């Protein structure tokens, strides 16, 4: 929290050139105690001001958002948080991405806006901690200015929807006060933020701030930006990350009209994964995309595999299963409560099951791309990134420019899901611009995107549980095997498990003896973060297994879950993590009630399934109803309840919960990445078939628990972990087929 306080202290008031009030953070040279810079020097470029809030003389309010918007609604939510503190008229608010904020502090980067990361569930909680103050400060300054003009003490004035209102009814618009407010000396201490009963925007529904620009096709994603004199670059990557180019013939390529140059790229072995080129590649640079693509088609390349050329996903899976069965295999002990071995001796019943999850690609709708222009003393980039500071690191290393000489714009991003936490494509674009001596616009084709990802590693899970005579689970042993997504990223070996499993996942804390082990697999296939890790695979195994326990005990799985969760209480899980069983029970009961569990579970011809989970301070449960008509599986209903603490934007939250539900269902139904002889076998949406409308439920019934007494939690992937196990549990009810391996459809059709 100390970082939040220091950031607050650095909030700064500046005057724009056209009578604007700007509240933001100081410029590179400025210090907190500096007087505002002369307006003439500032210009009207809000980007150079590090502004969070700008109020123009005409009353227009511009709110800058620091975290990349990847479609999780963070930008709209953050702007609403600031606008509410400001008492702005939302109709007059425009929201714009700030891009990377970096300053030069003795040759090292100083991040103007603090941490900048999008699509990772941090945007709203971080803004709640510090950005309310930006709105509150701007409002305070406007009140002081109004007090002087009206001759009324500031504490007798109120604000509402872009107006300062005096007790006698006189009103002044924010625009008319902006210039004067910019000259008011800021307060020595942080301004108090609003009491919740005064919220006007927080908790009220709002559509995406970019909606109109998106539906009219005017919103420009990174791949829609252009630089003068640019060359378009497309790539052909080596099928193996460790392969080599044995022969190349570019004659036919260079003969294509518009093709300018062919450039070879190689990974830098000394660099961590994600900061250098993923695999050797040949780039075709041309005057337009079509020429580049035609040139790429005419390349004659002879790639030779490296050591990874012997890898097969099927073999890796067999290794994983063998590791789980071998109790003497080396494993990391993730958690060990009580004594599972001793508890086993009291067994009334013992159950064991294994689950296998596939490798997955990110398949972001907007493929990897990057626009870069290099000049002697400046690099300008437009990057679809979730982590602009990481992109900066790559550019800095490759160009040697000073911190502030690297400008990175981050327009709205066409999907992140973790793929854009890595910047291999930024390294490629910079290297190509250096080789070409011209600006470069790099565009990956879908085939490259699917076949050269940093994949979510597949995993295998083996769970065994011991149940006593009273049907209480008294021991739980869980072994997970996977190739860590943190490997080759400078993460110490003893932390590699943290991307694969968490020490505080359910049912830890609920079972007296609990043990979780992780076994490492080795693979050269690149791996990285993906939306919902490390919860997705573990929640599938655990929540499927609880359903299997219920079946083994011949009882209603809701009853099994309620007994497992026990009385509402706070369960300390270590490292400051707490499981609030009351909140988890609540979301579970809400979905069960909504789907009519008690009436329908036993009697419906369709199958009903449940699952619940906790991520940080947020809780989620799903209830799914599935119907089977021959080989045709139909998801009739999908109900999801979430408890995320305070809700900033109910419309945005509902969209995220419904969206994550559908994404998780579609992924579970259809998707898996496989590799044979080290080559990825998925190259298009034909063999990586995202679910279409027909496969998905027509509606997602979202229930949001009111949470005014708790700070907001990130919610963008909260609804992912429970959707797949609830579906598998519903499928079991309707088909008697227990799916322990995803993707579900392939397994179900094999077993039906």
């Amino acid at each position, binding site marked *: 929290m100390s970082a939040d306080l220091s950031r607050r202290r650095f909030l700064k008031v500046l005057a724009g050139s056209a009578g604007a009030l700007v509240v933001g953070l100081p410029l590179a040279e400025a210090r907190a105690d500096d007087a505002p810079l002369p307006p003439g020097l500032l210009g009207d470029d809000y980007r150079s001001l590090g502004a969070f809030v700008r109020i123009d003389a005409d009353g227009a309010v511009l709110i800058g958002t620091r975290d990349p918007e990847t*479609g999780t609604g963070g930008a709209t939510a953050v702007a609403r948080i600031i606008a509410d503190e400001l008492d702005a008229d939302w109709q007059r608010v425009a929201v714009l991405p700030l891009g990377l904020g970096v300053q030069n502090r003795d040759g090292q980067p100083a991040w103007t806006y603090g941490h900048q990361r999008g699509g990772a569930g941090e945007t709203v909680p971080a803004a709640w901690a510090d950005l309310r103050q930006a709105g509150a400060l701007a409002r305070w300054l406007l009140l002081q200015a109004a007090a002087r003009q009206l001759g009324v003490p500031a504490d007798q004035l109120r604000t509402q929807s872009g107006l300062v209102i005096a007790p006698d009814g006189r009103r002044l618009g924010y625009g008319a006060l902006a210039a004067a407010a910019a000259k008011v000396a800021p307060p020595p201490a942080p301004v108090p933020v609003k009491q919740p009963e005064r919220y006007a925007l927080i908790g009220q529904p709002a559509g995406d701030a970019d909606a109109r620009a998106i539906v009219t*096709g005017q*919103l420009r994603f990174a791949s829609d930006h252009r630089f003068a004199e640019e060359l378009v670059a497309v790539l052909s990557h080596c099928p193996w990350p460790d392969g080599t180019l044995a022969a190349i013939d570019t004659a036919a390529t260079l003969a294509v009209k518009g093709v300018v140059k062919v450039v070879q790229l190689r990974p830098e072995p000394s660099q961590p994964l994600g900061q250098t080129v993923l695999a050797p590649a040949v780039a075709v640079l041309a005057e337009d995309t079509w020429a580049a693509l035609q040139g790429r088609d005419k390349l004659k390349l002879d790639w030779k595999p490296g050591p990874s050329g012997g890898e097969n996903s099927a073999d890796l899976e067999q290794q994983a299963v063998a590791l789980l069965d071998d109790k003497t295999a080396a494993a990391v002990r993730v958690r060990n409560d009580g004594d599972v071995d001793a508890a086993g001796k009291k067994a009334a019943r013992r159950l064991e099951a294994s689950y296998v999850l596939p490798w997955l690609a990110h398949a972001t*709708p*907007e493929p990897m791309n990057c626009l870069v222009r290099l000049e002697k003393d400046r690099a300008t980039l437009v990057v679809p990134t979730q982590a602009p500071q990481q992109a900066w690191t790559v550019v800095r290393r490759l160009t040697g420019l000073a911190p502030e000489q690297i400008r990175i714009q981050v327009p709205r991003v066409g*999907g992140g899901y973790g793929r854009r936490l890595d910047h291999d494509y930024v390294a490629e674009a910079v290297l190509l611009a250096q080789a070409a001596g011209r600006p470069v616009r790099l565009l990956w084709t879908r085939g490259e995107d699917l076949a050269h990802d940093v994949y979510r590693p597949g995993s295998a899970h083996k769970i065994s549980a011991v149940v006593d005579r009273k049907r209480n689970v008294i021991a739980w042993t869980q072994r997970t095997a996977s190739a860590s997504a943190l490997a080759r990223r400078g993460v110490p070996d003893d932390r590699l498990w943290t991307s694969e499993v968490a020490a505080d996942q359910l049912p830890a804390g609920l079972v007296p003896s609990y043990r979780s082990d992780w076994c490492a697999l080795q693979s050269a296939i690149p791996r990285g973060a993906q939306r919902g890790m490390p919860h997705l695979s573990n929640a599938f195994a655990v929540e499927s297994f609880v359903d299997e326990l219920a079946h083994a005990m011949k009882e209603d799985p809701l009853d099994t879950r309620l007994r497992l969760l026990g009385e509402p209480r706070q369960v300390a899980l270590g490292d400051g993590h707490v499981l609030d069983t009351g909140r988890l029970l609540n979301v579970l009961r809400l979905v069960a009630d909504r789907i009519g569990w008690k009436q329908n579970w036993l009697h419906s011809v369709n199958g009903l399934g449940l699952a619940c989970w906790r991520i940080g301070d947020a809780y989620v449960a799903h209830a799914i109803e599935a119907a089977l008509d021959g080989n045709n599986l139909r998801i009739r209903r999908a109900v999801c309840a979430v408890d995320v603490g305070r809700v900033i934007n109910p*419309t945005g939250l509902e969209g995220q919960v419904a969206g994550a539900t559908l*994404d998780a269902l579609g992924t579970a139904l259809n998707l898996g990445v496989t590799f044979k002889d080290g080559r990825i076998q998925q190259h298009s949406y*034909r063999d990586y078939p995202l679910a279409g409308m027909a496969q998905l439920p027509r*509606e997602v019934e979202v229930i949001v628990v009111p949470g005014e007494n708790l700070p907001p939690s990130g919610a963008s992937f909260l609804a992912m972990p429970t959707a797949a196990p609830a579906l598998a549990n519903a499928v079991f009810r309707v088909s008697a087929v227990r799916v322990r391996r995803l993707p579900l459809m392939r397994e179900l059709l094999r077993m039906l």
Partner: protein
Amino acid sequence: MAQAQGVPAEPAGRIVPEPVRAGIELEINGERYRHTGDPSMPLLWYLRDVLRLTGTKYGGDHSGADLVLVDGKAVPALAQPMAALAGRRVVTVEGLAGADGSLHPLQQAFVDEDAIGCGYCTPGWLIAGVELLNRKPRPSDEDIDQLPVLCRCGCHARVRRAIKRAANGGKA
């Protein structure tokens, strides 16, 4: 040359004027264009690289992000060579709104239902939805099921609501 002086090389009536630059004429969003480049260039790159109409997106084969209306039919711009478009009428997402900036009812319904995730596939949904509504003003759920657009943000349920809202005169 001297020999030819005073004697036309060919009868005047047979002089062929300098031909106008060959090209493919088509209409895009109500404007007429002539493409004089490679006739095999797909419409998507003509829109995005030549005209800089970037509302139509590249998502790869079968993504649906590149759908446009050609003579009223929703087709992937990636699969339309310019040579096949002579004399055709193309409408992209930029052409759905009225000249006065008023949104198409389906665009308005997308805004009202907040049927937007990252927004990258939204133009594809809009084009596919407009075609469906033109073809069938009261589409069934089964009709909507057939829309050929892929979305990783999971906007399907809201897109469905938006299409139904538009079909219902803007009411939910």
